[in-house]
């Protein structure tokens, strides 16, 4: 397939690996923050191709993994109301909340529907005017604009039974918080599709203030290896900066139209991240103008008190301090079929990716 096959070319992969080995003399740790990267890195066995002095660590870029139990609990509370239809991406359905999951509620009769796009949720709302349709908005800057676009569409169509429960977050505050916390890394393999929307400017601080290399990467083996080579070059030259390796999809300025939609509908708010706690201005909340689409404003509901799962070290893994294999529950009490923590549920979660490709 175009834009995929040529980036899986064996010859190119070999060439890149050779060059990385030749060029790299220093001991370095690189963090991939995007869950899609975590998945691709495990799937293609990238770590086994690299010389021993280069270490890859997974970071906090799986949106399902960093979201709070209270978000899931609130969705569950909504699903228990008779006049509510929950619409959600498939990733969320099996995530354990404090005492239940959407999947379990569905089995008990709740109307929970998996959709591919917020546009499908709008269609459901149009067909069910007597019900309140709540869409669970999760994801970083890649996904947030589609939620904004959905709300703008709902407004244009005059839909009054459509609501968004937003757990949308923005990526760069978490990347900066990790450095502040003293996590030892030399550079970031920066998220390709977040950057497609935001452009490369959001990482400026990381290179200039914190002195870390940042290379925006695509998701194929050639993309990832090329990004690693560019980071190695930066390290060897002592010249950390922001570079785009994924030029076919990322422009320095990003997608201005999508940014505009996000600005129109959302405002920045403090938000809680698993492993990192509350980070200032890291979440996207629906602003006053579009308040009538905000589930939490328009549909009051009582939510059960939060209970965190004991023994799950997902938070430490998301900070890059521990590896899934350090968890006592990994592949024992916790498997993809029977997940204890969010990092095992989502395909983008580090525990899930390790389980499938690296067990």
């Amino acid at each position, binding site marked *: *397939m*175009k*834009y*995929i096959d*040529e*980036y899986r070319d064996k010859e*190119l992969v070999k*060439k*890149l690996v050779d*060059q990385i080995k*030749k*060029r790299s*003399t220093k001991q370095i740790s690189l963090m991939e923050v*995007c*869950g*899609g990267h975590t998945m691709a890195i495990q799937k293609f066995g990238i770590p086994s191709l690299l010389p021993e002095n280069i270490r890859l660590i997974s970071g906090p*870029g*799986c*949106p*399902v993994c960093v979201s709070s139990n209270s978000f899931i609990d609130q969705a569950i509370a909504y699903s228990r109301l008779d006049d509510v239809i929950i619409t959600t*991406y*498939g*990733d969320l359905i099996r995530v354990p909340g404090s005492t239940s999951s959407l999947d379990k509620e569905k089995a008990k009769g709740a109307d929970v529907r998996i959709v*591919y*796009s*917020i*546009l*499908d949720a709008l269609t459901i709302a149009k067909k069910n005017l007597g019900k309140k349709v709540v869409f669970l908005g*999760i*994801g*970083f800057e*890649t*996904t947030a*604009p*589609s939620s904004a*676009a959905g709300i703008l*569409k709902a407004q244009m169509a005059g839909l009054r039974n459509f609501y968004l429960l937003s757990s949308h977050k923005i990526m760069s505050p978490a990347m900066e918080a990790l450095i502040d916390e003293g996590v030892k890394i030399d550079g970031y393999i920066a*998220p390709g*599709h977040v950057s*497609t*929307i935001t452009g490369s400017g959001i990482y400026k601080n990381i290179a200039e203030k914190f002195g870390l290399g940042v290379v925006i990467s695509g*998701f194929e083996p*050639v993309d990832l290896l*090329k990004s690693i*080579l560019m980071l190695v*070059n930066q390290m*060897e*030259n002592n010249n950390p900066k922001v570079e785009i*390796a*994924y*030029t*076919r*999809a*990322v*422009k320095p300025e990003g*997608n201005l*139209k*999508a940014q505009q*939609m996000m600005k129109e509908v959302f405002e920045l708010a403090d938000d809680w991240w698993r492993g990192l706690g509350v980070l200032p201005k890291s979440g996207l909340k629906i602003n006053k103008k579009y308040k009538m689409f905000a589930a939490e404003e328009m549909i009051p509901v009582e939510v059960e008190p939060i209970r965190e799962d004991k023994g799950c070290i997902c938070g430490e893994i998301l900070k890059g301090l521990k590896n899934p294999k350090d968890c006592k529950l990994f592949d024992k009490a916790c498997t993809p079929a029977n997940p204890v923590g969010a990092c095992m549920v989502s395909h*983008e979660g580090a525990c899930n990716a390790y389980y499938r490709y690296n067990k």
Partner: protein
Amino acid sequence: MCLSIPAKVEKIDGDMAVVSVGGAKYNASLQMIDDIKLGDYILMHTGFAIQKLSPEDAEESLKIFEEFEELNRQLDKEEKKTGERIV
């Protein structure tokens, strides 16, 4: 959900398009991008085209290794001359 895939635009109807991913057809909203023509490749994410893929840049990015190779050849040469690698 964070994944986005390259897809080819096959039909355009207002702000919606039919796109194909390795033969499978999907609907994609064009709300977020301008100037899309039939045959263009877009990056699709949760039912939205989030960027037009650039063929020139794709070629460019596959070529970049030649640059690195050149750099490495130079370094090797200097290494031989001085007996030590500078960077």
